[in-house]
């Protein structure tokens, strides 16, 4: 059991759902390591927001990226060293607002990365503005008269974009979450985990989620079913919505030859002029 805790003081609000994610990720990483993945081969990237602070609390290598760009950063890491398992932490503003494009393209390409999206339904770190996942009517500091937009459904949006692994879990179901994260990282191809993450300061959804969440165990047999479950207004279904084996981006574009050292490059050029 590796203690993956850094020495950095944790500044999440007491009761924040992010603690659940941190705990679950640690569990998942330990399981991966136990099963043979060298810890040194697990790296992370994160965006900017409360979610991004996990970078400071998790003692593994990685890049604390720009707001919205952590998946692009992660894609570069993965392409450069396909041996690394890359886990990206994004906020709902981060991954589906500022960085929406990168999220959907990572899914479309099926690059072998994992995106863990902290869905707290608002912009936490900037003190509670409405996010792309805030419900209609949400009163935030930038929408004092109420949000008029209809939130995206991340599960179906990511399925639509082509993500080959799509799942949802909840920070208060740590062992479920840890298992989902483990599966996501193990999955070859792009994996997306929507994590329902209550924000005690600006969007306290604990009782809503505690009431409504329900874990399912079988991957829905077809897309229509998955979509219905994802959009269910009564029950919030937690589990894996899609898991498909498709060729991953980095495999498909690999060069036939390895990167040459500079002397070999010089020889190749000399030969060609």
């Amino acid at each position, binding site marked *: 059991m590796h203690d993956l805790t850094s020495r950095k003081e944790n500044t999440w609000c007491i009761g924040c759902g992010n603690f659940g994610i941190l705990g679950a990720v640690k569990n998942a990483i330990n399981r991966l390591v136990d099963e043979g993945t060298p810890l*040194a081969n697990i790296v992370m990237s994160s965006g900017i927001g409360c979610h991004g602070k996990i970078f400071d609390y998790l003692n593994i290598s990685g890049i604390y990226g720009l707001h919205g760009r952590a998946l692009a950063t992660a894609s570069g890491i993965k392409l450069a060293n396909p041996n690394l398992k890359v886990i990206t932490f994004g906020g709902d503003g981060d991954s589906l607002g500022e960085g929406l494009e990168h999220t959907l393209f990572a899914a479309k390409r099926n690059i072998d990365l994992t995106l863990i999206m902290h869905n707290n339904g608002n912009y936490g770190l900037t003190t509670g503005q409405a996010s792309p996942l805030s419900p209609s009517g949400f009163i935030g500091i930038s929408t004092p008269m109420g949000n008029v937009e209809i939130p995206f459904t991340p599960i179906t949006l990511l399925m639509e974009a082509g993500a080959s692994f799509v799942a949802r879990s909840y920070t208060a179901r740590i062992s479920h979450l840890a298992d989902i994260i483990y599966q996501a990282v193990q999955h070859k191809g792009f994996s997306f985990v929507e994590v329902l993450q209550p924000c005690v300061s600006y969007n306290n959804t604990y009782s809503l989620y505690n009431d409504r969440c329900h874990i399912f165990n079988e991957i829905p047999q077809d897309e229509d079913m998955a979509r219905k479950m994802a959009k269910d207004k009564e029950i919030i279904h937690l589990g894996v919505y899609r898991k498909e084996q498709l060729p991953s981006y980095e495999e498909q574009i690999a060069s036939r030859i390895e990167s040459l050292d*500079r002397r070999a490059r010089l020889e190749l050029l000399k030969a060609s002029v």
Partner: protein
Amino acid sequence: MKTDIFTCLVGGKAGEGVKKAAQVIATLAVKQGLFVFQTNDYQSLIKGGHNFSVVSISQSEIYNCYHKANLLISFDERSVERHMEDMAVGALHFCDIADRKHDNLIALPLKDLIKKHYPDGGSASLSAIAIFSAIAGISKEVMNSMINSSFKHYKAENVAFASEIFDLVVQANTHSITKLARSKQQPGKCYTGNQLIALGAWLGGLDFYFSYPMTPASSILHYLAKLRDSHGVQAIHAESELAAINMAIGAAFAGKRSGVGSSGGGFALMQEAFSMAGMVESPLFCVLSSRPGPATGVSTYTAQEDLYFALNQGHGEFARIVASPDSFSRAFTLAQELVELAWTTQSPAVLLTEKHLSESSMSIKLPLPETIDVIPITEKANAEYQRYLITKCGVSPLAFPGVESSEDNAVIKWNSNEHSENGFRTDVAQNIVKMKDKRNRKLQTIYDATQKYQRVSIYGSGKSIVFAYGSTALELREAQKYHEFQLVVPIYLEPFPREELAKYQECEVIVVEHSSQANFARFLKEKLNVKIKKSILRYDGRHFSSLMLAEAIKETEDA
């Protein structure tokens, strides 16, 4: 115009193979031991409109194209009209019979012959090659073998078509024109500026090039993409420029030399991540190839409007390198240098250039080094590793995750927030100061590191001191054939090569640039307190005529 210079202009619609014709003509000339400069004037459209390409050929090195052509080949009426004024004394102007609107045109049944040889439709491209070959005294065999190696499809038809035109031109035997003498020199090969940048960067170790297409930088992406399996390099067309640059930083983190390229508009989108490269201390190679701005501007023409923008990219204060190649060979060597410097100083390094260099071609001998000293820059890392260790030179040991040289317990953290030595975020006052001071110490370190490369070019001598940068230097070197002056070219712009240029402090100088606001002159005033005797500006997107430059400089002296 020097008598040993021969200029051929091909004009026609986009899609008719104007550019291709000029490129093959240039290659043919090089095969004869001649030097060439080739450039293309085209618009942002795929078919139609009016394009023209120029090849200037000489027995000695030639640095620019000429505006007056000795041989003009017009594929359509619009070209005929447009280029009547571009005829040098004694020039030959070929066109299709239907377009023969002027007496001094030589008409050939171009369109009919295309129909005859290519019933499914073909392009005029080859006719230009044949006309040139016949006029320049190149044998039919040489011509045909060149055509065979340059065009993949319709090989038999091509040869028949070109041969028939060749014969017609020989028969026409119109006026005498100086045949291009075969020379014994070795002008090398024709390369576009972008090819040289791509090859140079690759030789510098570039493994990944991330880009989103934007003229005039796109052809770097296209060129490298083709080299993937032969050269082991990756050229990735990302979803946007923002994606490209963040990917490049990610790749650098994982240990691979990476770069990005675009024009001004694309770099405008990359500013936040450019700043991030400064903060996380990511090596980052960048190619900024300019076109007239602002905004979308004029996408297929040349400009040097982005100087201050290029120098001041990204919010916040951090060290960076900006340099601009003053020749085609330099495009190759500078790209190597900048990849190397980006990695040794862990900083963003920008190769600033223009459409005129990026998309023109010149015959050069690739300046290959004998050998390469590969300086290892990867450090071993263990549990004590600190990504941002405070050092005297400002550069911290660089290690990569999940590789042999890093122990399993090494934690390597790059952070876009202000951070402590270990890479964790900080907002403690003293830590901020320490880290900023560390990064600022790189200013000197970079200055010293650039010292091992040529930072300034000085060409010729004469009464006037003329300053320029980038490919404007080429336009001026050609002008030196007509008037003597001293041409001073800072290759490195940031850090500014103050030692080499100290002697020009307070001097009276002429500044030549492709800017409407004389920004390079402003820059030199700030850096060297020079007195600007004259600013020679061209900002219509076209390159300078070297003859006119010589004239303008001479005038300043006579005044």
